[in-house]
């Protein structure tokens, strides 16, 4: 299996406890370079907690995370980002006071080095970085098909558009791996189709690896190379979509009964 041959992300025995509650219990898996790895599971299975532990938002109680050959366990979020991992958030995290272009420009932060003062006195490095980031933002807005929205404020846009803007900011980071936390949640069917196309496009053109949490089963079965299934903080299955889909433990955990589960997964097959 490719995921184990060439892993970009290796999660090893990750554990997260909140007081008496064990949100993640000894979770281990790998995600292959250039692949789309999905993390699925019922509500409260620990998917977002897993994301937060990997990206440094939470400090795991135990376990290790290594990314692109580097041990990033215990890294603060900004260091994880600088290591080349980008993420989106379940409930959208844009900067409401900044227009769409500026939202994207923040994504270029890690490529620059100029400071507050350099910007204040229009230092050459600050201007160079600004120009480079602006060009890149224009390219990405073009790529997303929304160049006309550069000046718009995020609050004026429909939800699906805002998700695209957030995706655009993540693309600005030029990350090796992108973590998407429910990228399709709250989207209409055509918006979902578009998002799937975007993910595919980015992955195939630039070899970016994805780790995706998503509830839409047909979409997951469609785009993933590899699926990790969580239930009550434990990993209960791990493998290619076809195999996971058949797994009786997954079906039972997911829907309480094997028959009901099969009905849901049938839509994806």
């Amino acid at each position: 299996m490719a995921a184990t041959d060439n892993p970009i992300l290796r999660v090893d025995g990750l554990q997260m406890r909140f007081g008496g509650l064990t949100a993640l219990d000894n979770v281990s898996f790998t995600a292959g370079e250039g692949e789309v790895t999905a993390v699925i599971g019922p509500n409260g299975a620990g998917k977002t907690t897993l994301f937060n532990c990997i990206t440094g938002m939470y400090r795991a109680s135990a376990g290790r995370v290594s990314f692109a050959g580097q041990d990033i366990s215990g890294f603060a979020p900004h260091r994880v980002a600088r290591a080349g991992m980008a993420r989106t958030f379940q409930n959208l995290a844009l900067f409401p006071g900044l227009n769409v272009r500026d939202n994207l420009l923040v994504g270029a932060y890690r490529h620059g080095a100029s400071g507050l003062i350099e910007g204040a006195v229009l230092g050459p490095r600050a201007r160079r970085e600004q120009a480079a980031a602006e060009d890149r933002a224009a390219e990405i807005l073009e790529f997303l098909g929304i160049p006309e929205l550069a000046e718009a404020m995020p609050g004026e846009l429909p939800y699906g558009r805002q998700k695209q803007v957030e995706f655009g900011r993540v693309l600005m980071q030029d990350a090796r791996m992108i973590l998407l936390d429910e990228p399709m949640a709250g989207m209409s069917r055509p918006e979902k189709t578009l998002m799937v196309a975007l993910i595919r496009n980015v992955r195939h053109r630039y070899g970016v690896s994805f780790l995706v949490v998503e509830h839409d089963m047909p979409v997951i079965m469609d785009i993933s190379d590899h699926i990790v299934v969580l239930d009550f903080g434990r990993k209960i299955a791990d493998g290619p979509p076809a195999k996971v889909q058949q797994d009786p433990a997954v079906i039972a955990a997911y829907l309480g009964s094997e028959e009901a589960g099969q009905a849901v997964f049938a839509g994806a097959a």
Partner: protein
Amino acid sequence: MTSVSTSRTAMPIDEFAPSAPARQKAAARPLRWLWLAVAAAVLVYLPFVLHDRAILGYRLSNIQLLNVGLAQLNLTLIAVLGAVSLNYLTGCAGLVSIGHAAFFAVGAMAAAATGAQLGLPFLVSLVAALIAGAAAGVLAGLPSLRVRGLYFVLSTMALHFIVVFAFSEYQYAAFDVFGISYPQPAIGPFALDSALKWYFFLLPIVVLCCLACNYSLKHREGRALLAVRDNEQAASSSGIDVRVLRLKAFAFSSAIASLAGALQAYYLTTVSTELYSLNLAISFIAMIIIGGMGSIAGGVVGALVWLLLPSVLTGFAGELGAAGGGLAKIFVEHRPQVVNLIFGSLVAVLLIFAPGGIVGAARKLTKLVRPGAEA
């Protein structure tokens, strides 16, 4: 991935695309320069009008000059520095501080130590104030690493009292109870010995500081500051070290406030510890709320309103009183109270009907009048 190549064959999503109004930025350029030229001409001519109490040879009455004098305008310019720097910290970096008067005190102390005690040149003591302010700012920002919200605000208040205490100890030890006296400031052979000279010294400093704040917000780290204010999680997952950036913002803002404090001390020639009250700190907060949070213009407008409006109102109240009538007696006998009442009501009305401050309200208006135009 290294770059997203510009493929014109973007995603097939035109079905969603709203037709955005075409922007005529290029057409707006010459008009912009014209406005700038007019503003510059007014700023240069204004002090002469106030100095001569006349415009183009025509004498103006006090009320025609809105009861404003040149000395007041100079103090307003200094207050603009305070308001703009606080707006940078509070409106742009999202850190509410009631320690801003303390940075004025730090600047005055740095100027006293270098200018009054060591006898160093005026400009050197201004630089000393900048450095002392930045250092004090980093110290003041340290609690932001651990506490937030109201607790952080309280930590800035603690800073205020510590600095004021240090100021009075320093004042009594090195000077006397009447205050610290500053030497005559001079730049080389040019002494700043009149309000008019001060105006032309202060104006470029204020303009440059406003431009610096504005430019920094339009580049990498300044924009990151706005991002941190809007969404800390998203900012940190974009690679921004929120804690270090906040300290930098604090240093930047307090350096400017401290410079303003040194300028104020020199301008007033004598300052005493009572000047740096909590009232002063809160008045800076009032300025940025009135003017508008999060924009440089908001700080400028807020300082202008806060420092000049009471005097304008006093002038009109005096006129009304002189004109006689029923209300006249009240105006004459209770002028300060009446002015405070009107001023307070104005601020309250502004807060209720224009929570974005004067600048926010003006932007809304321009959007209404010219939809599609950039406010």
